[in-house]
């Protein structure tokens, strides 16, 4: 009488995975849209402070109209001693004549000019409008930032931005 017949040996039906690529592609597209590419992996350690009412730099970044300079403690601790107060500058992916100059405030002028020449074809703005964004560590001395400002002033790169993490709700 039993309706539930126990069948001897029947393998479980395979799960249909044909929609798996769709799901993964969906995830892929989400991440492609929602994120921006990393500019560079800085060789200095930077913990940026927080603040309110900051300007969002993402639109500039997506149009690559912005240059980032990092100011922090070198990850290579042996190098830290060489610098003023232990803080060094990291300027991303531009060929430097020597590794030491990579961390020097004096080279920022050449760095900025090179970066501008590189993007001149795409970006129609004058160099005074191209933002230089300083990402500095909480404890970094402002004296170095003012040294940078003097260097930038020399080549008329007159827009600077001080990076923070914005706490206010958007």
């Amino acid at each position, binding site marked *: 009488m039993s309706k539930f017949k126990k069948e001897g040996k029947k393998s479980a039906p395979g799960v249909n*995975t*044909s929609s*798996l*690529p769709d799901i*993964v*592609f969906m*995830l*892929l597209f989400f*991440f*492609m849209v*929602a*994120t*921006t*590419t*990393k500019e560079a992996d800085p060789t200095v350690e930077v913990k940026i*402070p927080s*603040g*309110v*009412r*900051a*300007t*969002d*730099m*993402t*639109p500039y*970044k997506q149009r690559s109209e*912005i240059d*980032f300079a990092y*100011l922090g403690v070198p990850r290579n601790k042996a190098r830290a001693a060489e610098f003023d*107060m232990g803080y060094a500058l990291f300027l991303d992916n531009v060929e430097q004549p020597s590794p030491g100059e990579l961390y020097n405030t004096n080279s920022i002028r050449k760095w900025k000019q090179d970066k501008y020449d590189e993007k001149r074809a795409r970006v129609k703005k004058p160099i005074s409008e191209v*933002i230089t*964004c*300083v990402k*500095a*560590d*909480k*404890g*970094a*001395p*402002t*004296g170095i*930032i*003012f040294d940078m*400002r*003097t260097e*930038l*002033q*020399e080549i*008329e*790169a*007159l*827009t*600077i*931005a*001080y*990076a*923070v*993490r*914005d706490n206010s709700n958007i």
Partner: protein
Amino acid sequence: MAKRDIPEINAGSMADIAFLLLIFFLVTTTMDRDQAYKRRIPKKIDVPQPPVEIQNRNIFSILANSAGEVYIEKRDGRIQNLDDLSDKVLEFYQKNEKLTPDEALVAAANPNHPGNNYPFYTWTDEEFIKGEILKAEEDLEKTENTENVDPAIVDFKAQILSKWMDKQKALEMYGKDYLPEIDYQAHCRITVQQATTYELFTKIHSELNEAIFQLRDEASKEIFNESYGVISRRFDNDQSREDADKLSLLKLLYPDNFIEVKPKR
């Protein structure tokens, strides 16, 4: 010819390919948004010029030393709680805002008046702006017709003209008879020391931005029934002419004149 079965393409590895791409993007991208305080660096002056005399009432001078202490020079002295800074800036802008032109004259003459130590506002009406535009136009034409004139001077005169044109447009949008303007010399000045930390430096900028935002937001809600944040974000996205004019009116009402002084020690 007989129909042949088209062999099916095996799509089993499609997921692997997609996963590979997904992981690549996960690794090379960041989610955090970059936010920063945008500031202008003043142009370099080749010929040193004598400093311009500025009245104390027009300066909001913030001093931050390497020990992390903050002072407001000639006003409140040492600031214990940095969060109060934006309120002090608000006071600086708003103290004399509601005075009529006559009251302002009285206040300026009386050293004991509470508003005496704060910048005064001027009121420009349409007649005055029109007169200035005519004057600027004539001046520009005269300069252009002068022989061997330095193009920088022509540029400068053209700038004056466009400044008054902007004011005319702003007044029209403002919808009142007068356009109130804070003293053009009024500014906030940040003086730091070499070793002042970046954290303190950005905190001061944060407070300044907060104050300016509040001022503009209030004005924006009153004039356009819209918050300042909404307008500026929309402008970031579509760069429309209308929003640009709105923002320039708000900027004219509450200019963000910040001076950062290069530390001497």
